[in-house]
């Protein structure tokens, strides 16, 4: 009895915080998504108009598709880069000091804000930017490449740049826990480097990959500012749809879009968790 009480008390602070700052706002969003809106105000109601408009508009499907596209491509790149970096850190670098030093090196870009790191690409990739000027002076191209900036390319480039570390950290973490004697055993049993990678390292790193995946996918799907700046406002994802609605005071319609996005992301994560048991990691 006494013990259960203590357990409850220990869990209480977190429960209160989650209820107040996570559950309550989400419930509020769900409620508001059924409200009505005039041009400058919202009024309590119970109507499906917001959802009706959302599901009947071809723009919604287009924008959700674009969001998935950004998420998938970014995921593929961050995974490839993140896995390679983590592999290098975990298995190639022998001394622990160097390992820690190199790992910290990876985090240096995070000392400045997200937005600054993103915007710094703009002068670099611009029509008269450093990238184009360099390529032209090397004689690789004759005219500036316009697709370097304000395109899907620049959006995905910025995403990969911003979010790769979220892949590196969990993968590196799981790799460090792999018992080195397993690798020796594999080698003794005659496995090639590639076989060790496929049959040993990748399966054992799956929880880390999955955690990284969840980070990257949720970050990209919830983003709006990167898409806005890097596409010069020309492309849209779901986040931008929501932010436009908010800017125009259409809170109920923004809430409805947010609810649909939230459900989509939750379903995706549920599917991912089917494949890997990340509790092993925690």
């Amino acid at each position: 009895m006494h013990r259960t009480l203590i357990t409850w008390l220990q869990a209480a602070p977190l429960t209160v915080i989650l209820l107040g700052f996570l559950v309550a706002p989400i419930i509020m969003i769900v409620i508001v998504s059924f409200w009505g809106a005039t041009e400058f105000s919202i009024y309590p109601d119970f109507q499906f108009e917001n959802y009706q408009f959302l599901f009947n508009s071809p723009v919604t499907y287009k924008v959700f598709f674009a969001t998935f596209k950004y998420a998938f491509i970014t995921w593929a790149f961050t995974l490839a880069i993140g896995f390679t970096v983590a592999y290098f850190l975990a298995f190639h670098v022998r001394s622990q000091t160097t390992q820690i030093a190199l790992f910290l090196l990876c985090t240096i870009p995070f000392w400045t804000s997200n937005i600054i790191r993103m915007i710094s690409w703009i002068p670099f990739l611009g029509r008269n930017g450093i990238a184009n000027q360099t390529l032209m002076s090397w004689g690789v191209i004759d005219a500036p490449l316009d697709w370097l900036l304000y395109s899907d390319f620049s959006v995905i480039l910025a995403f990969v740049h911003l979010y790769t570390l979220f892949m590196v950290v969990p993968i590196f973490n799981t790799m460090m826990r792999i018992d080195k004697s397993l690798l020796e055993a594999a080698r003794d049993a005659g496995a090639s480097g590639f076989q060790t990678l496929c049959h040993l390292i990748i399966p054992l790193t799956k929880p880390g990959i999955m955690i990284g995946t969840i980070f990257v996918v949720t970050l990209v799907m919830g983003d709006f500012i990167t898409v806005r700046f890097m596409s010069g406002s020309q492309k849209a994802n779901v986040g931008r749809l929501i932010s436009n609605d908010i800017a125009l005071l259409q809170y109920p319609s923004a809430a409805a879009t947010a609810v649909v996005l939230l459900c989509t992301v939750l379903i995706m994560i549920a599917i991912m968790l089917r494949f890997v048991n990340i509790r092993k990691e925690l």
Partner: protein
Amino acid sequence: MSKMRYSRRAVLKNGAAAVAASALPAPMVWAQEIKDITLRQFGTGVSNLNDVANKVKEDLGFTLAMTALDSDSVTQRAATQPDSFDIADIEYWICKKVWPTGNLQAMDTSKIANYDKIVGIFKSGKLTPESEIAQGTAPHSVGFVDGPDGNAFADEETGWMTLIPTIYNADTLGIRPDLINRPINNWSELLNPEFKGKASILDISSIGIMDMAMVCESMGEIQYADKGNMTREEIDKTFAIFTEAKQNGQFRAFWKTFDESVNLMAAGEVVIQSMWSPAITAVKSRGIPCVYQPLEEGYRSWGGGIGLSKSLSGMELDAAYEYINWYLDGWVGGYLMRQGYYSAVPETSKNHMSENEWGYWFEGKQATGDITSPTGDVLAKAGETRDGGSFYDRMGSVACWNAVMDENQYMVRKWNEFIAS
């Protein structure tokens, strides 16, 4: 923090009551208490200038706390957070949207010293007696209400103003003459395939749609009954034309903030785009040629003014009137006109400008010496004239005012589709 403010206000009010009761000479107490007053003003970046706040402190003694936001956020704040401001510095089309919420109070024009000198555009709607009133939300049409608590806009001067006009201008397209190398005379040039991938338009729906309408009309594709109040068919047609252009890669980017438009132009990403006057100034002050091109079809104009929060009362309301009178007294007007805007009472601004500046900015004359911005950058040299000419040339050829239309919600949804297309 906000509680502290609130209690200070209560103290102020009680203080004022005590003053009245004890029949002390009010001005003395006014001088002491005024130092403690803080008026919170918010608005778009154009007129929320720290120099103005500093000068207010110097001339009037009280503190003006400024917050600069983009047009959408300004509308949102004025409509939804009435307690977050004392003075709203908003545009007339925003006023049309926000006034029905009841968050603002009408102003008694008899307390405005320079009321009679305010330009006709804001009173009768006519710049000169012969002028025609342009399409869109013309400032005078939302400038007056029936009485202090009036909810409906009045057709004529009533003595109760919604916004005291402070700043306005005529907007057109900005171009990079060094990268275009030929004369540009029509709005339709924005969609000219010659500038494929080098054009831009602003991503603020209520203003962008007007620029679009100017372009479509100039192309001869659509004849609008009223560009400021389009029908659904007109909206559909307009977006069809622009969506096609977008998909053909006409636009390099869209911009939402002043800085973005400056960077697009200065970096050479864009050679023709919707632009605001001080953005041209900012590009020029970097030594890059940029012209605010007058076009045959006329200008798209806008005007802003300051409105008072409903919750202002007592000494703070007096301070606000004091501030408005000071605003129209010329110092700010001169400051703004040196950036290329116009002031609502030009004749008082004249006292705060040199003859050369007045000639260049207002009368459209050749500069007789260097023209500098308020921050000291040289904008024009002797012999140069202002793009578009004099005040009467520019404000006299306004084709439409920034507006909010009856079909606004429909338009906004179409705008979202346009951005996502």
